[in-house]
């Protein structure tokens, strides 16, 4: 009986533990193995060395994909956080109809990225969307054709992604703002400190953990971004908006080049580790004050 009591939690957790061990970590090892072979259409298991990685880094398309990831990731995270924070602060001013506004801003998050991508594809299409509308108002020289310009198209993806995610970031920050001790804020107000100083010197610094959570959520959204690109530009014009995830998909499922796909997946995983490991380290290290 006592044994059972001690071991029930372990027994209950065991199936999911095994499942994760096999289906997540097991397949990471499998992918790493495949990335070292000459697999094409079907997996082969004879180790061949780092040839797939050499090919990967020699591919101009992979360069474009990695550059796009940096541009997209950096802009998406920074702009979403700024817009989200701004919206949260405005909503925090005890305004009327806050509930309605909050829902409106949060709503894009409820849409599938495919829907977001398709809608923005139409909005940004120069012949159908904004450009055409403004021109029909009489501004004949108005041009907004980022979607079809290879050097600008990646920014349309940033635009759509920010539109989708900033409401969610706003909700995170709003919860953070509300959790700050009101006594401190009142004390500051009594001392006659201006509102912007209260935010910049008291509220925002106490919200540091929220920033970290928002960053982690947004960073993993950025790295795994796939459906938005497929719906909005399908990697085009040319392959100007390819991201590592779409590159991997193309290699694995369209080109019959499993080795390349595995190698690109490993690089993606390393990028994620570079972000997550410092986070885990800061979370898991023993706190001095405990």
């Amino acid at each position, binding site marked *: 009986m006592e044994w059972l009591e001690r071991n029930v939690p372990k027994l209950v957790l065991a199936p999911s533990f095994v499942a994760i061990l096999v289906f997540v970590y097991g397949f990471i090892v499998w992918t790493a193995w495949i990335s070292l072979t000459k697999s*094409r*259409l*079907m*997996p082969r298991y004879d180790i061949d060395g780092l040839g797939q990685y050499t*090919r990967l880094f*020699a*591919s*101009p*398309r992979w360069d474009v994909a990695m550059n796009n990831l940096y541009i997209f990731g950096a802009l998406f995270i920074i702009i979403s956080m700024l817009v989200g924070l701004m919206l949260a602060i405005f909503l925090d001013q005890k305004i009327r109809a806050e509930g309605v506004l909050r829902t409106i801003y949060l709503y894009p998050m409820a849409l599938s990225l495919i829907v977001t991508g398709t809608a923005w*594809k139409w909005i940004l*299409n*120069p*012949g*159908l969307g904004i450009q055409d509308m403004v021109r029909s108002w009489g501004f004949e020289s108005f041009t907004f*054709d980022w*979607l*079809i310009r*290879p050097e600008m198209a990646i920014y349309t993806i940033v635009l759509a992604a920010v539109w989708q995610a900033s409401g969610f970031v706003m909700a995170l920050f709003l919860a953070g703002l509300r959790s700050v001790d009101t006594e401190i804020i009142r004390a500051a107000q009594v001392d006659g400190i201006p509102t912007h100083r209260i935010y910049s010197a008291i509220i925002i610094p106490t919200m540091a953990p929220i920033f970290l959570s928002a960053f982690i959520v947004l960073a993993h959204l950025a790295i795994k971004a796939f459906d938005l690109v497929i719906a909005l*530009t*399908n990697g*085009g*014009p*040319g*392959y*100007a908006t390819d991201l590592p995830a779409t590159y991997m998909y*193309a*290699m694995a*499922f*369209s*080109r*019959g*080049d499993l080795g*390349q796909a595995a190698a690109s997946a490993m690089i993606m995983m390393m990028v994620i580790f570079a972000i997550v490991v410092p986070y885990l380290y800061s979370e898991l290290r023993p706190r001095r004050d405990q």
Partner: protein
Amino acid sequence: MKSVLAASTAVMLAGPAMAQPTAEVLHWWTSGGEAKSVAVLQDQFKAEGGTWTDMPVAGGGGDAAMTALRARVLSGNAPTAVQLKGPAIQEWFEETGLADIGPVAEENGWADVLPEQLAAHMKCEGQWCAAPVNVHRVNWIWGNKQILDEHGITQPTTWEEFNAAAEKLQAAGITPLAHGGQSWQDATVFEAVVLGLGGPEFFQKALVDLDTEALNSDTMKQVFDELRVLRGYVDDNFSGRDWNLATSMVMNGEAAFQIMGDWAKGEFLAAGKEPGVDFVCWPTPGDGFLYNVDSFAFFNVEGEDKQQGQALLAKLIMGPEFQKTFNLNKGSIPARTDVALDDFDDCAKQSNADMNEDAGDGSLLPSYAHGMALRGAPAGAITDAVTNFFNSDMSSEDAVQQLSDAVANAM
């Protein structure tokens, strides 16, 4: 008569003492006309006493079906027959082996009725391992007849003439070329230009044999120059446009031409347009015929019922009756050269005549853009270089460099 005899013997052989033929068929013909075409095969198969299990997997132009196939093969349970084409057949043969359907092929005399070039695709190390269904011609120009008549434009025989015609149309305020900015469409135009400017021999060297010299040649640079000129004839909103939307631009008179395979004809016909009256089909300038052949390959399966299903299916696919009905539905032409084409439209008849003529002089060539000439990785590398060029302002010299680097990297 001979084939009728052969068919009846096969039916007799498959009499009550033998197992009932069964087939599980993996394909991605799920849209209207295509689904109708598969149903024809299914009905014939059932009429011969077979049990048909349909396994349609839609999506991604066959990508999803190929993923399903890989999963099935890896789990040791390959479907009886799979829609496969081009060098992918031989690639699968090397990976897992394919069933030998030689007896059916010899009994029905396939070698006599298929052009040599097409037959080669159906063989793995000399054995018959696949059965062809149809032949699509890829290098067509579709034109809006009314616009062309208005501006007195006749069939261009060189790309220069095509350019002159396009300039004339552009000056009159008409978009000369309807095109969709998807990489396979860019590749379709590219290979038509390679064939037109370089000729069949150059096409063979550059896009089939991947000869480094041909890929780096001045001719290839001229091809990219012409591609840049063509880019100027396309309207600004072409990014990501589907091919059938480009076809309807030609239909509605918003654009004059489209360079596309003969599946575009299906769109015209479905809209009630008539070839020669409402639209024209011209081979792209230059000499040659680029083909895209759909076929079914047969995996190694256990059990007599399944093996009989394969034999029956192979026989039916190459049967003249099926070849005719299927291709009338699909818009392509029969792979067999001995099917009467009386019920087909003029474009199909021309396609058939050109195929027979070009088969003799080496200008019947596999389409690279549609996976007939090269395996996945090198074909994809070429498409990357082409689409990158078409969608940017890269110089032709850089494009040639990138093309040959990409091909070397994909080997």
